[in-house]
């Protein structure tokens, strides 16, 4: 009984034998790498990269819900991307504009 469900999953046309499974699954790596980078100092965060991560996450979250069939795994991974991207951006903006008032201009204008 359980094995036939497992077999049904394994042999699904969008299952783990296909790219339709692994490509969205691996996209979680982007959010995981971002979470690992939470520990890095904000000076090392790249504005363009994190804006790209956030924008991609937001746009794909919407589209994963309107395609047929809806892809909740894709939705979840893009929500996570948007969330981690926004957090990294907030860390860098806080460092650049809301702390160390006595210091000279933030690194952006250097």
């Amino acid at each position, binding site marked *: 009984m359980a094995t036939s469900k497992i077999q049904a999953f394994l042999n699904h046309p969008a299952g783990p034998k*296909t*790219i*339709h499974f*692994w*490509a969205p699954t*691996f*996209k979680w*790596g*982007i959010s*995981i*790498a*971002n979470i*690992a*980078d939470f520990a*890095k100092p904000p*000076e*090392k965060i*790249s504005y*363009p*990269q994190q*804006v*790209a*991560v956030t*924008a*991609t996450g937001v*746009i*794909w979250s919407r*589209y994963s819900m*309107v*395609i047929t069939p809806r892809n909740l795994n894709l939705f979840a991974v893009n929500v996570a991307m948007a969330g981690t991207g926004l957090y990294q951006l907030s860390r860098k903006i806080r460092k650049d504009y809301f702390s160390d008032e006595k210091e000279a201009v933030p690194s952006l204008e250097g």
Partner: protein
Amino acid sequence: MATAFKAFLNSPVGPKTTHFWGPVSNWGFILAGMADMNKPPELISGSMTAVMCVYSGLFMRFSWVVNPRNYFLLATHASNESVQLYQLSRYVKAQGYLEKKEPEAQQ
């Protein structure tokens, strides 16, 4: 010319469909990578760049077999693969992983 443009507008992977705008947002990764090419390599995140290389490789395959086949997504990820591989090479060189002399001098 006009009919080719109309064919593009009405294509099943054209700008009236989600299949078009998703890849458009993914161009952000390429533009970000290109903007970061001239920054010092100490700022590169090795884990994020390595993840991007695998991610774009997987999605190039995905864009080829998905129905309908999405050449725009393929081009997007092929470009991202190039940019991220270049950034990864800069990171690896800056970290000294490819040097053979004086391994104790690094980290």
